[in-house]
């Protein structure tokens, strides 16, 4: 075998070309990884909102809470369904919620640029129903008042969204921000939580809720719960596991990003592969004499072929690693984007998974292997006599 150090040195001799080719590959890997990480980030943020032992009930036929409405009298029926967990006092853990998106001015954006923020009217026991949510600053809202807590993703980004400040849900109906909560990175962190009655009267939803969320005794109780809820044909309700519900909510947006990412990657991949091929062809042509000498010394055609393949692979791996590192640095940033299903602006971060990193590296290496194959074949076919003569 021809030692790898020969290839590494060859790459070093042509520094500029090596750098440019690796740079091209790095950009492709960067784009691929960034798009996948973004898509994973959306899914992760939305799916994180769900707990396996929680169930969400909406009106049958509604895709999400926004288009659902349930009459108040059904809420007590749902809460009384067997399988719903009780707290220490015997009260069911769950409650009806009202969900509305409101237009809010974005701070530091262009004038007139508004964003849809999700306002959720919640029951007083909401922090018990969703134990993953913790107030990290200020305090929880007092029951029965026009106070609200906001997700930490909203703080300082929109008008009125800081502790001590207030904003209007309706003319002359301001709500005061008293606390900030975190929710394990889920989309709740982009929501405003107000008292259920405040939301109902501000949005004209008296006697109605959008959805009912309950905590079950255990995740295994879900099937029985669902069966009970959905057999009552008069109620016309649909129960979903909270995890499943949020997964469904994320699909449209995550898929959109994935498809865009794939299209972009395919085009860039083709371009960078041709670029790598060009570089390797040039390398082969330049070193015709060297290759001839190697052949004359007794190295087999296969050894030459693999040597050039190794060289282009090394080039690609270096490029891929640079691109991947750059993409990983994106995990430190946060992005805001609208969720297509709910029109709600959610903020999330790039999520790097081992699968994404592996795919990106494989794609990078693939560019080197595909781009290097034809030139390596040409090199292997060099006739020693001719090469040394020319």
């Amino acid at each position, binding site marked *: 075998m021809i030692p790898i150090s020969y290839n590494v040195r060859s790459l070093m001799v042509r520094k500029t070309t090596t750098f*440019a080719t690796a740079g091209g590959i790095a950009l492709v890997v960067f784009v691929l990884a960034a798009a996948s990480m973004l898509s994973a980030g959306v899914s992760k943020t939305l799916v994180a909102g769900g707990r396996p032992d929680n169930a969400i009930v909406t009106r049958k036929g509604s895709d999400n809470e926004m288009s659902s409405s349930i009459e108040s009298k059904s809420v007590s029926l749902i809460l009384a369904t067997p399988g719903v967990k009780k707290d220490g006092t015997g009260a069911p853990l769950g409650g009806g919620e009202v969900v509305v*998106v409101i*237009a809010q001015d974005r701070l530091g954006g262009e004038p007139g640029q508004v964003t849809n923020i999700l306002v959720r009217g919640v029951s007083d026991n909401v922090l018990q129903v969703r134990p993953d949510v913790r107030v990290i600053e200020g305090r929880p809202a007092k029951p029965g008042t026009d106070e609200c807590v906001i997700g930490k993703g909203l703080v300082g980004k929109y008008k009125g969204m800081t502790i001590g400040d207030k904003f209007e849900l309706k003319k002359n109906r301001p709500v005061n921000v008293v606390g900030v909560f975190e929710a394990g990175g889920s989309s709740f962190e982009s929501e405003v939580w107000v008292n259920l009655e405040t939301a109902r009267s501000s949005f004209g939803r008296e006697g109605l809720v959008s959805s009912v969320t309950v905590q079950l005794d255990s995740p295994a109780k879900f099937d029985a719960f669902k069966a009970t809820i959905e057999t009552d044909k008069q109620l*016309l309700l649909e129960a979903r596991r909270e995890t499943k519900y949020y997964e469904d909510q994320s699909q449209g947006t995550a898929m959109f990003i994935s498809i*865009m990412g794939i299209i972009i990657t395919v085009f*860039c991949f083709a371009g960078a592969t041709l*670029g790598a091929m060009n570089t390797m062809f040039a390398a082969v042509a*330049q070193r015709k004499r060297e290759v001839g000498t190697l052949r004359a010394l007794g190295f087999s055609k296969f050894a030459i072929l693999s040597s050039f393949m190794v060289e282009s692979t090394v080039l690609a791996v270096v490029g891929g690693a640079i691109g991947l590192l750059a993409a990983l640095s994106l995990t430190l940033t946060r992005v805001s984007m609208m969720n297509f299903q709910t029109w709600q602006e959610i903020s999330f971060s790039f999520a790097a998974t081992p699968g994404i990193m592996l795919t990106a590296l494989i794609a990078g290496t693939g560019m080197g292997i595909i781009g290097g194959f034809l030139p390596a074949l040409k090199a292997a076919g060099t006739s020693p006599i001719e090469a040394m003569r020319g």
Partner: protein
Amino acid sequence: MNLTSIAARNIGRNKLRTSLTVSVVAIATLFFILLRTVVWSWTSASEFSKKDRIATRHKVSFIMQVPKRYVEEIATLPGVTAVSWMNWFGAKDPKNETDFFATIATDPKSLLDVYSEIKTTEGEKQAWFEDRQGALVGDALAKKKGWKVGDKVTLSGTIYPGDWTFNVRGIYTTTTTNVDRSTLWFHWNYLNESLPPRQKDMVGWIMTNIKDSSQSGRISKEVDAKFDDRDLQTITMSEAALNQSFLGMFSAVLKAIDIVSVVITLIMALIVGNTIAMGVRERTNEYGVLRAIGFLPKHIVRFILAEGVVIGVIGGLVGVLLGYPVVNGALGRVIEENMGNMFPQFKVQPEIAAFAFALAMVLGLVAAILPARKASRLQVVEALRRVG
């Protein structure tokens, strides 16, 4: 033999390399055209918006409604020529639930007054007006679903529960891209009559035509002032502003596409620059000879730059020539049919194609600058000594 022909011959010398580089430029140009067409198609609705049309909706939330009587009150304002109202219905085709299209309840007669862009035949128009359960369907939607005039269509409501049956009474098309060609419009009365009392007589949003488009700001303010002391306040803006604020929600996506466009040009510049640099390196001693027989460094610079431009021009041309059939023929048809609500028209715009072509040419030039400078600075003796 002059310098230009030397440059041209140099390009033809390594045909494999040149064709690879040209392909890279062509791919990048094609992709650039595709990306910019996405942005154009997406944002063009706001460019085509009518200046004499204003929209009124609930002040706080677009998912909430305003009373129907607001329509009559707006109609009495001076300078208003036509008013119509709409309500988002949000129904799905039970046969294919994931397939999204808009279903909107409206007042048929005033809708066609306000939206002069919606075109249908006189006969279909009258038939739709007369049938309480009648629907007017966009041509793109009708084609995709295979619906014809006279068909009965049953949809399931997501906001308004139950099954709803409509009779397709007309197919419309539009003259501009700001109106979706995949909407099913039907009688607001049909919806309103079947609602429980508390949901009755509410509308999603109101569209108003005004006589003088320069008055749109003033009339918008007047409308909002009129309802300011009522129970439900409104916000009114021009159709262009409405579309703009809608696009604002997608600003992250649009920004991402912009970034990708820049990355593409970077990749392209790197690869083209690299190819030219390789060519220059291989021909170093030829440049030495040229210099030795009296050519000046500026001549060397010129023909290396010319080489870059020629590669850019050929690649750009191939990219543009591929762009039309790929974007208009293959992708455009699929996108218009399936995502017509977001991309009402998906076609290459001549100015985008021209820009992409010019970009390819300029990039070829820019990519050649560094190798050209390097070559021009070589000492003659040094260049002649260098082999391969």
